[in-house]
């Protein structure tokens, strides 16, 4: 039996599940099984194989999804502190990695790790990058200020609390279109 945790979230997995999975869950992201989702670089003439690089099996954690697993090699690492240290609302480390998969596609992984004294959860995002615009979008859509959203509005019963909650959270919401017409909820009655 294994058990892991990140922050206060915890998961426990019985070995039987791993056996049922054949040690590995089907990966909807993995082109090696499911076919490509993004354009590949043209194959070298003459049917040459992938370049001689230290390939290894890589599995990238992704919130809300099965890990993105592929055979590849890291080609870029870029870590940064995000947010003003004086601003308690958003202090986080942003760890960005770019990988080249063996089938010659780019994979981006972003981990946003909020400062430990913040009541926020780490964020993990991963995805294939087909073109430069997608990389730009990937980075801007996963701004570290997302972490602030992990803190729900406690005691927001009054108008004033609701207003302040809205004002405090409006910037990341506006940036990600969360308040747009696509928003839907049944108010918890389903």
């Amino acid at each position, binding site marked *: 039996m294994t058990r892991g945790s990140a922050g206060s979230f915890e998961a426990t997995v019985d070995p039987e599940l791993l056996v049922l*999975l054949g040690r590995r869950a089907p990966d909807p992201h993995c082109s090696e099984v499911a076919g490509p989702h993004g354009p590949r670089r043209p194959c070298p003439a003459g049917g040459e194989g992938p370049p001689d690089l230290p390939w290894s099996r890589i599995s990238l954690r992704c919130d809300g999804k099965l890990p993105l697993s592929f055979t590849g090699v890291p080609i870029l690492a870029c870590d940064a502190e995000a947010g003003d240290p004086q601003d308690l609302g958003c202090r986080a480390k942003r760890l960005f990695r770019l990988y080249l998969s063996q089938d010659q596609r780019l994979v981006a992984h972003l981990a946003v790790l909020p400062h430990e004294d913040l009541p926020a959860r780490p964020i993990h995002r991963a995805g294939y990058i087909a073109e430069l615009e997608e990389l730009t979008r990937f980075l801007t859509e996963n701004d570290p200020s*997302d972490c602030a959203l992990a803190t729900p509005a406690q005691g927001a019963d009054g108008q004033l609390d609701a207003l302040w909650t809205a004002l405090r959270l409006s910037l990341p919401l506006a940036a990600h279109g969360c308040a747009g017409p696509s928003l839907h*909820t049944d108010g918890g009655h389903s």
Partner: protein
Amino acid sequence: MNVMNAAGNSAYDAPQPLTSRPDNPMLGLPRDHKIRRMGARPLLFRGAELAMCMSFTPELPYWYEMNIYRTEQQTFVLAIRLFFQSDSERDRVRAWEFDTLPALFSQIETYDAAQDVRFDFTGDIARMSAAELAAQSLDLAARVAAARLHFAGLAGELFAEMDAAA
């Protein structure tokens, strides 16, 4: 703290933070389960729990718990439970049965936690200013986003643990 399953006296009546169940002795052992669901008949089966995860955080007013079971009929059951710290909130249970594990994982990936956000509209809408309405709207949007982020983090935790153990 309200830790009772408001859906009734199921086989899983008293969820506790995982930290109080250090070895999780029930995991992997076949037993009878009765999961009462909202809007559906209770799900009755005998089977073993294959995995569980929970997002209990003392600072948060709610937390999720997910359980995966294998039944004796070799089907798989997913239960997603939402618990509240407040006694005034009703805990919610959703459960489904699947033929395969990939179908179950797909349900986790597509579960929209926005459906768990209650819209408490305070005040008289006819007398509210545009700014107040905007604030209410933003507050709801923020809570929806927070719920989705919260659940996605838990799902990622479960999948990452499966991946790390494999």
